[in-house]
């Protein structure tokens, strides 16, 4: 994030935290990097507190409830101990069946890796995705901030806040995948950050059904990622 600025003057060093750049992740405090214990974490007020909710892993999203933004339901594994940026997505698909045959789950990870993002950048992508007729995952904390009909950020006061990362999650039909990817590639040029993109697909035997289509279209797919190995019970086939 590079929020910590060091200044040398007259033989002494002053270190400050740039409050515009700071995403309230808590790493500087936790690392013990300040030998004089000058770093402390004040109680954050809305809307700045949203930085902490989307940056300090395991802190959780209580702030959203506190300001009356209700709806995020942490999955039970995370309840009471904070949560990640998104949902269980494909990690439990062998027992939830959230991603079925012929579907592709898409995750757009804003600000990752390590760049951070402003919420106004989310809107540029979410509005474009709404035009494809997608429905955002309701259990994702980012979804709570969005108008589900327009894709706009409902809470204008958070648009200029900066956080570490947030994930836009939605499903598309497999045949829609390439057109959605094209839109993502186009809109990515309009944002002042990075997005890292996930494509989730249920396997058929030992093949990944969406892969040939992506390869034919020249979409670059990395050699590694996550595989749910189907040991959950009862198993959804």
């Amino acid at each position, binding site marked *: 994030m590079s929020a910590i600025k060091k200044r040398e003057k007259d033989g002494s060093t002053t270190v400050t935290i740039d409050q515009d750049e700071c995403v309230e992740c808590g790493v500087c405090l936790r690392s013990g990097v300040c030998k004089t214990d000058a770093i402390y974490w004040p109680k954050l007020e809305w809307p700045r507190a949203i930085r902490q909710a989307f940056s300090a*892993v395991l802190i959780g999203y209580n702030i959203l409830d506190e300001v009356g933004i209700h709806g995020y339901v942490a999955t039970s*594994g995370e309840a009471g101990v904070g949560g990640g940026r998104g949902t269980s997505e494909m990690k439990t698909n062998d027992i939830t069946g959230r991603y079925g045959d012929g579907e592709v789950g898409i995750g757009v*990870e804003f600000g990752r890796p390590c760049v951070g993002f402003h919420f106004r950048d989310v809107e540029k992508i979410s509005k474009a995705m709404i035009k494809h007729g997608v429905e955002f995952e309701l259990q994702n904390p980012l979804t709570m901030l969005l108008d589900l009909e327009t894709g706009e950020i409902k809470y204008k006061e958070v648009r200029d806040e900066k956080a570490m*990362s947030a994930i836009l999650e939605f499903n598309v039909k497999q045949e829609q995948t390439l057109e959605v990817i094209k839109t*993502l*590639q186009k809109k990515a040029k309009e944002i002042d950050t990075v997005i890292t993109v996930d494509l989730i*697909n249920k396997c058929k035997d030992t093949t990944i059904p969406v892969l040939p289509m992506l390869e034919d279209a020249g979409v670059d797919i990395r*050699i590694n990622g996550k*595989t749910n190995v189907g040991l959950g019970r009862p198993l959804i086939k």
Partner: protein
Amino acid sequence: MTHSNHRRGSRESLMGDWVILVRGDTGGQPDKMKKLVKIFGNHNPVGLVKRRSLPSLRYMKNWKEGLGLKELVKNPDPPIYVAGVYVKKEDVEGVIHDLKIADLGFSIVISGVFDEVFDICKRVGTGPHTVNLSMGTLGKTEYLPEDKILEVMTMCGHSLVGEPLIRHVIDQVSNGRMTTEEAGLELGKQCVCNYFNSVRASNLIKEYLDTKNLKTKNQIN
């Protein structure tokens, strides 16, 4: 959460970087979760974490401030979340093999090179059920550092291991104030989910210094 989905690196480097994760809320009973933790611990993890409430119980190989592996495995609290980090394919296969036999019913996810993971599935006789593919990074990629730094950085998918800290520990190593192993552990401390592979980080830092013709503390001594 997709925080182990976008780990960067060559095939050779990624062959030393595996994460196995489980959501305990998918399988239920605490006694099963204890069995699972034992299986994870039996196959040489270089990182292991379990969590029921905060703080998480964490192990990293050679990390003196954290828990020892045996201590973590023996801890009686049944977790709802477990993840192990491994550096060898055969250890990952060992975990999946034992989990298949134990039939605990939890959803199990491996983060690693796909064709190697599929090979493990074939040999063990399970899945694959669902994949999460990484399309890489779009947008202002000029904000990203060079590949070797990025390879270290992306081992914490929540971005808690940042570029300035990575450069700081590299500087410490090149000045003889830290070993590469200590540097890897220092970075790993920040990754509260404990997915960070401190062993691989140590190797990557050494490679980085080699490319810059800088010496490590080990070489200086």
